[in-house]
């Protein structure tokens, strides 16, 4: 059976969220991950969206961060200025879930352009709140499928700052979840392969990574999804098999 890579990624990311945390969520995979966590092991997870929605309990996968369903099921909706200046900036958001087109070994993310900024090959959507979330969330979890193009030695544009060279800053990237494994960040702020899915080796990951990968000495295996996780995934519109 074909692996449900999206489902695996969402479940692996969901496990990184702890009950009671306030998590800033986007649409797509981050939303799937946060809602799996809320249904399986973190019933008190507070879902916050950059549209200003606080504590949403969506009944279906939202199609935009301003989806009417998020608003109807929310505790409150605050102006965007308040969300960024009074909730995010002072550190009231525990986790930011971010996607992107490219990531580098310091956890810097590109969601702006492929190619040069002035003469782009592909012009992407841009930061939105991502650079602000990367600045202020106590930690961020990055989700993206793994390939040489997405994990290059040098990304085309730094939209959202990771850890500066040689230094792990207090907030910032804490994990990267791909369709091959889960990465953490070392004490010096360098990305490190922490675990792979069953049947995936560190070499498999290295061939889809543009720099010499740091691998944890005790490299783990991502545990298989539990029935509860698969149920949650299915009920949220995922394939529900892994």
């Amino acid at each position, binding site marked *: 059976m074909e692996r449900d890579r999206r489902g695996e990624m969402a479940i692996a990311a969901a496990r990184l969220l702890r009950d009671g945390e306030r998590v800033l969520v986007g649409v797509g995979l981050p939303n799937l991950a946060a809602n799996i966590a809320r249904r399986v092991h973190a019933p008190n997870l507070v879902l916050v969206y950059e549209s200003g929605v606080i504590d949403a309990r969506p009944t279906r996968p939202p199609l935009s961060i301003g989806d009417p369903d998020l608003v109807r099921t929310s505790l409150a909706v605050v102006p965007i200025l308040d969300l960024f200046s009074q909730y995010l900036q002072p550190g009231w958001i525990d986790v930011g879930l971010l996607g992107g087109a490219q990531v580098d070994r310091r956890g810097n993310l590109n969601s702006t352009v492929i190619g040069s900024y002035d003469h782009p090959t592909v012009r992407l*959507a841009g930061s939105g709140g991502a650079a602000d979330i990367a600045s202020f969330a106590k930690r961020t979890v990055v989700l993206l499928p793994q390939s040489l193009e997405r994990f290059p030695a040098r990304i085309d544009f730094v939209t959202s700052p990771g850890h500066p060279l040689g230094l792990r800053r207090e907030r910032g990237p804490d994990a990267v979840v791909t369709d091959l494994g889960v990465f953490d960040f070392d004490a010096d702020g360098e990305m490190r392969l922490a675990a792979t899915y069953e049947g995936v080796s560190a070499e498999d990951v290295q061939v889809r990574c543009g720099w010499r990968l740091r691998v944890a000495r005790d490299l783990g295996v991502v545990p298989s999804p539990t029935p509860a996780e698969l149920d949650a995934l299915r009920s949220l519109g995922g394939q529900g098999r892994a």
Partner: protein
Amino acid sequence: MTAFLTVQEAVSRYVGDGDAIYLAGFTHLIPFAFGHEIIRQRRRHLTLCRATPDLVYDQMIAAGVADTLVFSYAGNPGVGLLQAFRRAVEHGELALEEYTHFELVARLAAGAADLPFWPLRSLDSDLSARRPRPRVKSPFGPEEVAVVPALRPDVTLVHAHCADEMGNIYAWGLLGEVREAALAARRVLVSVEEVRPGDGLRAERDHLLLPAFRVESVSVAPWGAHPSYVHGVYDRDTAAYTEWDRISRDAGATSEWLDAFVHGVPDRAGYLSLLQPERLRALKEAAEHGA
């Protein structure tokens, strides 16, 4: 005194070639009726400002009204990229002034408060390196913070639920950056779903979006935010966002769409007459019943 004008009259009187304009509304209450009228009146050399350009600016960019875009996230929400925007940028036809969401709304907050700049702590990136984002020293301590300059649109255009007969504007639900964008502007033009007679709306003081003295004109435009939504009145037409992704991938299909749905109709009522009544009914029912 707030004037009650048609959408055509308001645009004709107050939106000029070369203006910096802001069509407010973060996923919700997007003033499509105004956007289409600006296309129809063939305005040129505009600076379009908006945190999330969305379909409305993709259509305006495709129609050739804009020289410059001031923005923070140019995606088709929940679908992908904005194709007309992409083409214009990749062909070097559109100048960009790009920010993060926080920076852009902070610029509006400074404009609304009549301050020259707004301080914030977002970290530096390749984005902040492309334009001036100086740091200033706090006069009260050793800290330094980055600042962004005030943004003051010539005209901000807003869509809202309703107005009273004086021109006070009321809205419910997700307000995003609407209030800051309006209060930062020299002039504010508003379209509404309806005007309610009498004093009844005064009891809704928690939902006052703008007092009449900040509103230049009010225009009645039912469904003026379609295919975005008006909370509790009609739901977001997500199919239209997917359809636009398909249409906008092709420059020819894009102009055909603009010819049919914008230039080919005189006003919002004409646009609505091209949509299936069942489609509109379903959006209304979804909003009323929370489907």
